[in-house]
């Protein structure tokens, strides 16, 4: 197999048990005979080395009469183009318009570093000067991770505990705004009294005359709240999901049996919220839904992505966050084995791990499981078990639970796979949440400060000692996947990103007319929270 792309070099090294510095890989890839260069570099490396360094390669290249690197065939390195049309914010790299006429499309105009394949005569030594580009990411700090701390045993009381915890924490967010009156004491206030209460939505019904009856529940009981259809707030009823926490204020009816609602409050993100940023220029790639093992997994596109990470341009991309569905899994749907490229679940993870090794070894990787992964489906989902971690250990990624909050250079990223998005999209009116604009569904979750409020529907819940699905602290970035559609935007200054996928349209998606956004990598500037999207289609 020809080794002219960095990712292939990495793969070849990985097969021999080596990780490699990015620079070293580039050197090998660009030598005139990468195979030879690779072999001799390994020769040069000491017996006990695990990482092939630039020095090893140079040593090898100098020792052996390796021909000068010649121009790399452009056909094998398709241009990672920037999707200028859809970038959220104007970033430096968005200036890099995709120009097919360019000889060397892989290098963006913003980075004046070496251009080895432009000039066949360039001595590789010249690149010595750019060694400063090596990544030095800080290991991200993870919060809300329940991996290895699942204490639930499936008892009734634990379920109650979860919902009580949800109520306690989310009502806490609302208490500053309303003066909560317990459900069992409202009736005693007498007709006509002004009343405010906070509760989980227990039921939503429309009355015969078209008004909305919303039943709220707190720890003392339930109380019916009537939202008149001609009020502005009636529209908000469309947004409500069961079991989310809201506050209402209104007037008690004459018989004190019902509250006429004047206002509905959500825990929400304050409009004044100001996100934190990194104090240096550093970037993170936010991806999800790799689906290795599926016949539709786009290995080539992934290779291009990994290649690009090896380029100078991607030098500041020091973090890779993966929001679930590393592999296609087994038994996710009936007769799935007939559509799998890799039938063995462990082989799927092995292969995923191989693909992950193509990513530069000096990046920090954080991943959470998704609904295709080999962990329980009920949320919160703990991170992979020891056996699977063992398979993916080469890159030493941080494997945490779904959901989890990851602090990357001071920027807090809430990572959640996104199963509840299906439900939000199904329940809410199209303009508020749709598959074409998945980030709008994410706004709803931010507004409700809960990643999967509705119990009993599509989302599965495993009781734990607390409700891990509550969004306690407002994150700076909210990152989900699952729906295979790309979408992002800012909600009260919080960046919501749904990354696309690395799996081409499946037969099932075709049948329900879902056109997935494949092989996109949203790249986030952690110092500005500006984002652009790179395409590797």
């Amino acid at each position, binding site marked *: 197999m020809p080794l002219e792309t960095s990712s292939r070099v990495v793969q070849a090294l990985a097969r021999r048990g080596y990780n490699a510095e990015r620079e070293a890989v580039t050197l090998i890839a660009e030598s005139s005979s990468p195979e030879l260069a690779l072999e001799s570099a390994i020769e040069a490396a000491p017996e006990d080395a695990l990482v092939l360094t630039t020095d090893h390669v140079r040593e090898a290249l100098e020792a052996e009469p390796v021909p000068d690197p010649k121009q790399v065939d452009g056909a094998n390195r398709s241009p990672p183009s920037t999707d200028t049309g859809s970038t959220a914010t104007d970033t430096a790299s968005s200036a890099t318009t995709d120009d097919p006429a360019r000889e060397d499309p892989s290098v963006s105009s913003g980075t004046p570093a070496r251009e080895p394949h432009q000039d066949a005569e360039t001595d590789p030594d010249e690149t010595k000067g750019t060694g400063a580009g090596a990544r030095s990411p800080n290991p991200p700090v993870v919060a809300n991770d329940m991996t290895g701390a699942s204490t639930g045993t499936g008892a009734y009381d634990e379920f109650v505990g979860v919902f009580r915890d949800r*109520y306690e924490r989310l009502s806490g967010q609302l208490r500053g705004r309303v003066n909560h009156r317990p459900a069992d004491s409202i009736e005693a206030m007498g007709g006509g009294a002004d009343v405010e209460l906070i509760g989980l939505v227990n039921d939503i019904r429309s009355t015969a005359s078209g008004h909305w009856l919303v039943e709220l*529940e707190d720890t003392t009981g339930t109380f019916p709240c009537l939202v008149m259809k001609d009020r502005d707030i009636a529209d908000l009823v469309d947004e409500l999901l069961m079991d989310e926490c809201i506050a209402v204020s209104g007037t008690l009816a004459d018989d004190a049996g019902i509250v006429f609602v004047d206002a509905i409050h959500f825990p929400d993100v304050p409009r004044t919220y100001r996100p934190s940023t990194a104090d240096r220029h550093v970037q993170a790639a936010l991806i999800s839904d790799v689906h290795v093992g599926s016949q539709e997994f786009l290995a080539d596109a992934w290779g291009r992505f990994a290649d690009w990470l090896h380029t100078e341009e991607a030098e500041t991309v020091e973090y890779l966050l993966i929001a679930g569905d590393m592999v296609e899994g087994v*038994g996710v749907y009936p007769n799935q084995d007939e559509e799998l490229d890799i039938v*063995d679940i462990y082989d799927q993870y092995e292969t995923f791990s191989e693909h992950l090794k193509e990513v530069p070894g000096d990046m920090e990787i954080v991943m959470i499981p998704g609904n295709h992964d080999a962990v*329980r489906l*009920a949320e919160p989902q*703990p991170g992979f078990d020891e056996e699977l971690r063992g398979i993916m250990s080469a890159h030493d990624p941080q494997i945490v639970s779904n959901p989890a909050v990851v602090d990357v250079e001071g920027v807090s990223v809430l990572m959640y796979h996104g199963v509840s998005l299906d439900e939000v999209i199904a329940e809410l009116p199209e303009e508020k949440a749709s598959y074409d604009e998945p980030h709008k569904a994410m706004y709803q979750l931010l507004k409700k400060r809960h990643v999967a409020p509705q119990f*009993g529907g599509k989302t*599965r*819940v495993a009781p734990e000692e607390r409700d891990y699905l509550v969004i306690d602290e407002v994150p700076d970035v909210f990152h989900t996947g699952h729906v295979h559609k790309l979408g992002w935007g800012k909600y009260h200054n919080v960046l919501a990103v749904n990354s696309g996928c690395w799996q081409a349209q499946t037969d099932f998606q075709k049948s329900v007319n879902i056109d997935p956004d494949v092989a996109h990598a949203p790249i986030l500037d952690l110092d500005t929270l500006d984002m652009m999207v790179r395409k590797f289609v």
Partner: protein
Amino acid sequence: MRPDDERYFTRIEDRLDEAFERAEAAKAQGKDPETEIEIPVARDMADRVENILGIPGVAERVRELEGEMSREEAALELVTDFVEGTVGDFDSRAGKIEGAVRTAVALLTEGVVAAPIEGIDRVEILENDDGTEFINVYYAGPIRSAGGTAQALSVLVGDYARALLGIEEYRARDDEIERYAEEIGLYDKETGLQYTPKDTETKFIAEHMPIMLDGEATGDEEVSGFRDLERVDTNNARGGMCLVLAEGIALKAPKIQRYTRQLDEVDWPWLQDLIDGTYDDTDDEEADAEDGGDGSEDETHEDAEIEGEESAEQEEPDAPTGPTRADPSQKFLRDLIAGRPVFGHPSEAGGFRLRYGRARNHGFATAGVHPATMHIVDDFLATGTQIKTERPGKAGGVIPVDSIDGPTVRLANGDVRRIDDPAEAKEVRNGVEEVLDLGEYLVNFGEFVENNHPLVPASYVREWWEQDLAAAGADLQALEDDLTTDLDDPDAEQALAWVEEFDAPLHPAYTYCWHDISVDEYDALADAAAAGEVTGDLLVVEHTDTVRRALEKLLVEHTQTEDALRIPDFRPLLRQLGLTDGLRREWERADLSAEAEEWDGGDNAVRAVNEVVDFEVRERAPTRIGNRMGRPEKSESRDLSPAVHTLFPITELGGSQRSIGEAARNRTDKGKGVYDVLVGERECPDCGEHTFKPQCPACAAHTEPYYECDECGTVCEPDESGRVECPRCEREVESPDWHTIDLNDEYWSALERTDEREASFEILKGVKGLSSSDKTPEPIEKGVFRAKHGVTSFKDGTVRYDMTDLPVTSVRPEELDVTVDHFRELGYETDIDGEPLIHDDQLVELKVQDVVLSDGAAEHMMKTADFVDELLEDFYGLDPFYEVNERDDLVGELVFGMAPHTSAAVVGRVIGFTSAAVGYAHPYFHAAKRRNCDGDEDCVMLLMDGLLNFSKSFLPDKRGGQMDAPLVMSSRIDPSEIDDEAHNMDIVRQYPREFYEASLEMADPEEVEDLIQLGEDTLGTDDEYRGFDHTHDTSDIALGPDLSAYKTLGSMMDKMDAQLELARKLRAVDETDVAERVIEYHFLPDLIGNLRAFSRQETRCLDCGEKYRRMPLTGDCRECGGDMTLTVHRGSVNKYMDVALRVAKEFGCREYTIQRLEILERSLESVFENDKNKQGSIADFM
């Protein structure tokens, strides 16, 4: 009709009249909701249609039209009558259309099924966007029972009526069209459709449909797009509509087209495009060119469906290199369930060998199996057990036939034997090491006709061989008369002598399964035999694995020692091996032609054998049929759950047992046994007293339901259709009202009136509340008698007993545990050969309405008869009717046969009893109830019980409430008016030689249909009630185990272990595949489903039973403060986990399956185990 038949029917009707007379006298006393018998007698289909619909005048008009035209045409003709008002008394246009549509469906379903009343909710007239009117037909789920053709025609009838009334066509909005497409897909996913139109097809139909198809929501799943449409009430799938559109219009388009052509007012030009498939704009021309036919066949779509099965014949190159075989079909293995074993993998050697023929208890979706086989498969098969089968149909009821070959087994000592005696089978079955062959499997020709399945190659059997022999010049009659010759099982000398004398193939008894061994094995066997020696009358050959296995595959019986195989009766085998009696091998391998060597890739030695021997050796078992167990057979009384003795409401007072005695003693705040309950308000016409009882407590007159408008107090009367509307407020008025019942008084006075004490029954059970529209309670006295005699009531007041249906056309008095005298009393005079009936063991042709009760049913009917007699005497003060002292007294009594989803009962007459747990009756009797015998079950009721106790007033006021209730009874069966499936049954004594030969070519059944008489050939003739001959006898219709092991084994685990144990034993079964499928189709769905259910479950209050969608934040029940509990517990989630993993590993299942289980196991651990407090297990240290 022959006088004999006329006498038979008259006899039945005379007894019916007697019963009516008594029942009328009872009813007239006014103690029941109505003063008349509520099951009218229908003498023909027209009567049934009218009675089911309740539209007067329909029957007369139907009879008029019936002589002149087909039923479909009559349905269309009736539309004019409805529109003009000459039939039916409908004022509104919607009413007229509704009447016409219902009548059409009733006509096409012969007035038996409930579809016309339950499947069509209403017809409405709505407005198009341009302000014109259109009609909307509102279907409901039970339309399913009408079948595709009637569904499709109901649409046509609706449209025709619309056109006649001058109403505009429906113009579907775009979102409605899209909605149809999405909904059909959703319904198919949720419930499944026989035929699922593509989205483009659905949209095409929706766009052109001249009337709107609408319906009730059926499923739980909602559509995701196209919700909340203005003209569609629901976001759920509308099941009835989906059925009509997909299985009606889309599937039966050619049939409708035939009728649209006859109507000037109705023009559906788009049907042609639908039939041709040219609705997709893109491939318009292509399809046109391909298939420009006039579409007069309705097979267009059906063909596509069964394509897979029929491709077998197509791959025939110039010179065949292998035998003609039907393609194996896996379908029957789908959804394999734990505990229901597989008997043979598709077409696998060692499985059942297909034999053509109809036994006397056979035909109409049944499969004949040797009783010894039933025992050998560990009793999993019994008479009436349903099996899912590879071909020709999908399923069949098992019947015992002992005139076919039994199984061949290898015992633990190595002996290979065929077992033709059930007693021997029971004796040896514990010592069976491998079941080499399951024996023969009898399927009648009609089954292939009914399923339109190409014939498959026939086994070489006696009835074919003897025709070959006769054709070769033998005098068959002389041979048959010769007592020294056994044509079934001749001795070897005789068999070889015939081969010498006549140019006919070797007798099947000595024809071995050469097609199951390879040419190499044949060669090796010949060598081994040549090297063997003859000791006495045994051939002794060296015991090697190859030779032993070859003999086993050939089904050659032998015994073995460690180093020798001993074969008795070996001379025909030697001949077929090409050896002389002196064990000299007369051929060389090189003598074989290339064709013989290469036949079926060398895996089939039948060509080689035929080259070696100088006579013909036919294929012994070319067609093997795979199958597995479906449902077990059934014979048990139908009890509601909890059981009910009387339909009297006692709220919660009777506890979970609903005990009336307990309720009467229970003290409420109103007093002992006093409570308020919603029951129907009635008024006494004589004294004006108001009561809930049918009989006035003051003056004993019969009371009538009393309707008073809640708003204005106006007293209203029901209209013709039974609806009650307040003339002033125009709102519906109902009779039920809250009454205070003093049960303590009611109960004890009922006991006093019946002169019974509480000790005469164990418990008397009532109901919580009434679900009928008028909420009429039943007198407690009826319950007292039921409880005393140990019978319970169904929702309609009748006592029922369920049995699996099986057909039988000839019986012996002896096997029915009755005497020939009984038979003669019932009007039977001769046996099937026309000889006078003298002996108990003579075979007699069964009359169409005679039924055989299972022992359990007979016992239950005796109890019912006692109950009815006591009811007549002590409640109505009349003479008893049955006076049954012993079981024989039931012979000659009338019963009702009644199938689920239908609304018409069929009168039957008891002629005897069987120990099999099934209801044997004439196939036409079952077909009159619209049942076939593939494991279907239905019930019998005692005639007088139905007449006295059935009332429409008890039927639940909800969709489907009128199903399974005897709204009408057929007193005599007209063979032309039954499910025509039964007409395809063959009724001959022998299939001709040409038939067997045609089967080898896999001919279509139509090609040989003329050779074999079917039931349909005698329809409308004098012979329509007689002459149901059979090709195979069986010594008893109840052989083999009485109950399937499935019913006698205890837990699911026991059943599954037995299933897998059997899989290991059967040569034709791959036990790994069975294990794999049990896990895949049973355990995994259960585990996954329960785990999913666990994580989104409801909770329930332990005290008051209140359910909550989510756990209340209070923790306790919000209603009563009681303790709450989960509805899905850990135990129910992981009950199969360990066993599934064990089975997967023990039976070598695929890694994929094991991994799925392991992942699930970890998920279970993750959900149910505390990481910080784990029980140490070995897995933790590995």
